[in-house]
């Protein structure tokens, strides 16, 4: 069976270390079950290495190869090539994952079903008109589990669809969501340029994982548990880290502001500026508290007459 990448057939002879790796792991990869020989497996590995590289040395390349989900990678490629046996195995093992991920991610069951069906067609490699095209499974590189990859693909597809549908949201729905109370962009016109510069400098000084943590917690309002699960650590670890980073950022930002010529009081006022996101929450909370006890709303138990 000839393997091909999305760009075309891999024509070059794979390096010796890749061929040796393919021979050593041929049995464990399950390639024989789908009619792939050693050479085809080596070609497949070469494609993955080329996309993930470059590597510092051969040892690093071999470590990378050893970390691949080889059996799942072979299965995905065999499916993409239309191998019936591979599809049989894929359906047995992953069909439920695909559909159940869609049911968990999409809030409406009918949407979830449509989402999963369309993705299934893309994985199979046909479009809505039934014309053959490249299977999405060709893009699976074996870096994570095939199950995890399917979930991410479902989530990506859902967000793409959600974004396109969001433009069609009615005004009433937007009001219900409190969207009218939110400012979409920070009002930079009234912001002291020193504050903006200090904040940007402070943000740039943070490590990438600290920025991700702050964005996930404060911008996306993800819970500590969600972040901890994603990072593979305990919730308390994230809580401590977040507290440490938040406190440190506050102190350093204040110092930067004072270094830029602000007084301590000015710096404190600049840092305590009201956040529009908090305003939005307060408005929503107020609305959700229900009608006030006024003459216009009879209390429970009171006679309507």
């Amino acid at each position, binding site marked *: 069976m000839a393997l091909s990448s999305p760009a075309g057939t891999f024509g070059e002879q794979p390096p010796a270390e890749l061929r040796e790796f393919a021979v050593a792991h041929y049995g464990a990869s*399950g390639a024989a079950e789908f009619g792939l020989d050693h050479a085809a497996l080596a070609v497949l590995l070469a494609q993955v290495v080329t996309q993930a590289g470059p590597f510092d040395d051969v040892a690093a390349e071999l470590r990378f190869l050893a*970390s691949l989900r080889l*059996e*799942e990678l072979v299965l995905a490629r065999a499916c993409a090539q239309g191998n019936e046996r591979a599809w*049989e*195995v894929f359906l047995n093992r992953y*069909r*439920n*994952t695909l*559909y*159940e*991920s869609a*049911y*968990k*991610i*999409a809030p409406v*069951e009918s949407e979830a079903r449509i989402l999963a069906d369309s993705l299934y067609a893309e994985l199979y490699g046909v479009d809505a008109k039934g014309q053959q095209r490249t299977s999405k499974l060709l*893009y699976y*590189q074996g*870096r*994570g*589990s095939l*199950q*995890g*990859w399917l*979930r*991410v*693909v479902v*989530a*990506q597809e859902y*967000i793409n669809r959600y974004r396109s549908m969001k433009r069609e949201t009615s005004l009433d729905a937007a009001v219900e969501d409190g969207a009218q109370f939110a400012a979409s962009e920070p009002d930079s016109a009234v*912001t002291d340029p020193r*504050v*903006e510069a200090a*904040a940007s400098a*402070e*943000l740039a000084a943070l490590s*990438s*994982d600290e*920025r*991700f943590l*702050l*964005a*996930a*917690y*404060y*911008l*996306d309002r993800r819970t*500590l*548990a969600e972040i901890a699960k*994603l990072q*593979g650590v305990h919730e308390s670890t994230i809580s401590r880290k977040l*507290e440490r980073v*938040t406190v440190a*950022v*506050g102190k350093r*930002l204040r110092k930067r502001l004072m270094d830029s010529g602000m007084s301590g009081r000015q710096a404190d006022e600049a*840092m305590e500026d009201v*956040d529009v*996101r908090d305003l939005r929450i307060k408005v929503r909370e107020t609305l959700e508290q229900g009608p006030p006890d006024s003459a216009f709303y009879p209390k429970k138990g009171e006679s309507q007459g």
Partner: protein
Amino acid sequence: MNDKLPKPMLDALARQTKPAEHPSADVLSAFAEQGLRAREKELVDQHLAGCAECREVVFLANGAAEEAFAQSGEFLAAAQPGQLSAVRGSAGMSRAAVGRPRKRWALRWVWAASGAAAVVLVGGLFVAPHFTARPAQEVAMKGAPANPSSEKPQELDAIASMAASPQANTAKARPAERRPIAPKVEKTSPGTSVVVASSDQAPAPQPNKENGAAASSARPAESATISIGGAMPGAIVSSPRASGFAPNAGQAQQQLDSLNVTVNRTMAGYARAQQSNWRISPQGQLERRIADGWTRMLADQPSAFHVVSVIAGNVWAGGNDGMLFHSADNGLHWNKVAIMSAGANETGAIVSIRFSDPQHGEVVTDGGASYITSDSGGTWTKQ
């Protein structure tokens, strides 16, 4: 988190330039599974910090994986022996359950409910002696009740015996000094065994001297298999009620079982799956572990199996074309079960089987049809 990020920092975070290129699904899934090299992880962190869209993707995907693991209760389609993808708990959810994404606070409610139950029951430890006049020692040696319907008083007795037992008090007051002890098993009613032991108990059960019969094992023979719904036998040892903080009798135990079941699944799901005696092979074959090897069962069936569920010696296996088999003797004998709908047999593939006890269960097909039974599969009602 009481600390608040200064507003200028929030603005700066929101102002970050959105990257033009995004990591592939492959890289994002490897990121979520902690499978990236340090340099790659840093790059993805950097991207995610500025890309709300990709953050949404990874959290959505990871949330689905989280719920799948939390709901782990069925053992599906193992690719190869020992492969991680063997844990396919998500299929254990009914269509109704998966149709709406579970709220993230749902799991927290389970913890909160478990905690509240523990507080109530621990409170009962101290309150119950004031309402029971009988000596605790007498109660502790009591076997099956003379009147089976008088379960509630016996429950209070058991609480009283726990509260008054010097051993229990010592275990609570000085947990570091707990040492392995054999579990005491009381037979309270047919099919119900009560474990009175610390969490580090020895596995050997102690015979019930009063009724002369061998008491049920604290870890039933099925504990290595995956059970759906109901109490998790394998989790009894580590559950709060087995560690001296809660009573071990009757209804209270059942309530705690139901509260803890999801938590137990979360914590013990993978471990139990690894110990499972049943699985579906990648080829869709039903297999049973016998003497460290896997033996194919129901080999004469042409259709592929999708799911196997085990509870209290009852094994249920479902697959394509509405195929459903039941064994009441742990796989020795099998009966083919027909699921009828409007006079015709169900032909959809069975993708989920959940039983809360040997009588009550639910199966779901890939077409979304759901059937429940309350008589061990004798009759099915479409939902």
